[in-house]
């Protein structure tokens, strides 16, 4: 099976920095644009322009502890998982088709249909992240896949399957959104002062290409993607409805709209 799989092509967008609502908006814009056939599959790494808190799709914002976070942006993610406090960190985001995992699955002796399993994307990508960190001298290990997926509401308090731990704590965790045969992956890396983020990006790019069999070329956001991200930032991630209630604006993709009593 693996021999006849055409390598998937991904665009790699160099390191950027943005506010929480725009970071989320760009990530979802990449997924929607890919699903609408006007964007390539994309990998990007970004930092946070100021301290932020993001929480997973299903999390009740009332349960998010923002005490001591007066100057912090608080935004609901499109992906699952718990609460993440973004201070000294970088995020790896990817939007693409699940079929792009087929070559990796074949090499690992997995049937092609299993690539739909969300856990496989964590296993594939987080392994590459761990290798990149090792190459930069950051000792780390991947949490075994047999470990529970229940990390509790605070994402970084309890490592779960395929998270990365180092120096006695969780240093990398990821979450996803799946829609129509495509995925949006967001992984958060805790970094310390002096961390070689540019070197990490290069190692990540090379590692993903080698491990997953992807052809990765450098690129930038298109004008249409920027416009879609600005729209999502304005009507969704910058809006109270989404962040407080988890509701998308009427007529837009996202959570089902309220139509009456449940």
């Amino acid at each position, binding site marked *: 099976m693996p021999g006849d799989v055409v390598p998937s092509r991904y665009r790699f967008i160099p390191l950027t920095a943005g506010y929480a609502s725009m970071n989320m908006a760009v990530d979802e814009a990449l997924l929607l644009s890919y699903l609408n056939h006007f964007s390539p599959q994309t990998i990007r790494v970004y930092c946070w322009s100021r301290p932020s808190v993001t929480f997973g*799709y299903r999390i009740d914002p009332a349960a998010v502890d923002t005490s001591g976070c007066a100057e912090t942006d608080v935004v609901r993610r499109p992906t699952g998982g718990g609460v993440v406090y973004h201070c000294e960190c970088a995020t790896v985001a990817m939007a693409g088709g699940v079929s792009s995992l087929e070559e990796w699955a074949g090499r690992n002796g997995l049937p092609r*249909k299993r690539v739909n399993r969300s856990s496989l994307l964590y296993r594939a990508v987080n392994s590459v992240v761990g290798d990149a960190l090792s190459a930069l001298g950051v000792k780390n290990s991947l949490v075994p896949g047999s470990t529970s997926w229940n990390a509790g509401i605070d994402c970084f308090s309890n490592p779960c399957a395929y998270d990365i731990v180092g120096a006695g704590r969780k240093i990398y965790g990821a*979450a996803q959104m*799946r829609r*129509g045969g495509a995925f949006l992956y967001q992984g958060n890396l805790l970094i310390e002062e002096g961390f070689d983020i540019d070197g990490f990006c290069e190692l990540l790019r090379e590692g993903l290409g080698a491990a997953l069999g992807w052809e990765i070329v450098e690129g930038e956001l298109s004008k249409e993607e920027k416009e879609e991200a600005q729209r999502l930032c304005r009507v969704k991630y910058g809006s109270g409805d989404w962040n407080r209630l988890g509701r998308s604006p009427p007529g837009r993709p996202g959570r*089902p709209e309220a*139509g009456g009593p449940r």
Partner: protein
Amino acid sequence: MARIGITDFAQDELGDIVYVELPHVGTELEASDDCAVVESVKTAVSIKSPLSGKVLEVNDNLDEEPELVNFEPYRAGWMFIMEMADPEEIEDLLTSEEYSDKYGTGV
């Protein structure tokens, strides 16, 4: 009327489901509209409606026991009941045999 849920194969692929968000009663859906979201292994998965119609009833038990979708996808883990707008749309869906052929598993 049609009772909507996900297949045993789908629940197995998703893993342990920890959250189910269902449409509201009265919602009018077109086939392929996003109609529900389930979360498992830190992944929010959008579910598409297989048919067009109006949502008549939702399975509120899934609020407290989302794992029912894993344990009994064809029974207690159903998601919602809809009034079909066009029963002929069923012809566009896979039969049990076709599903088994495609995914190598029973329905």
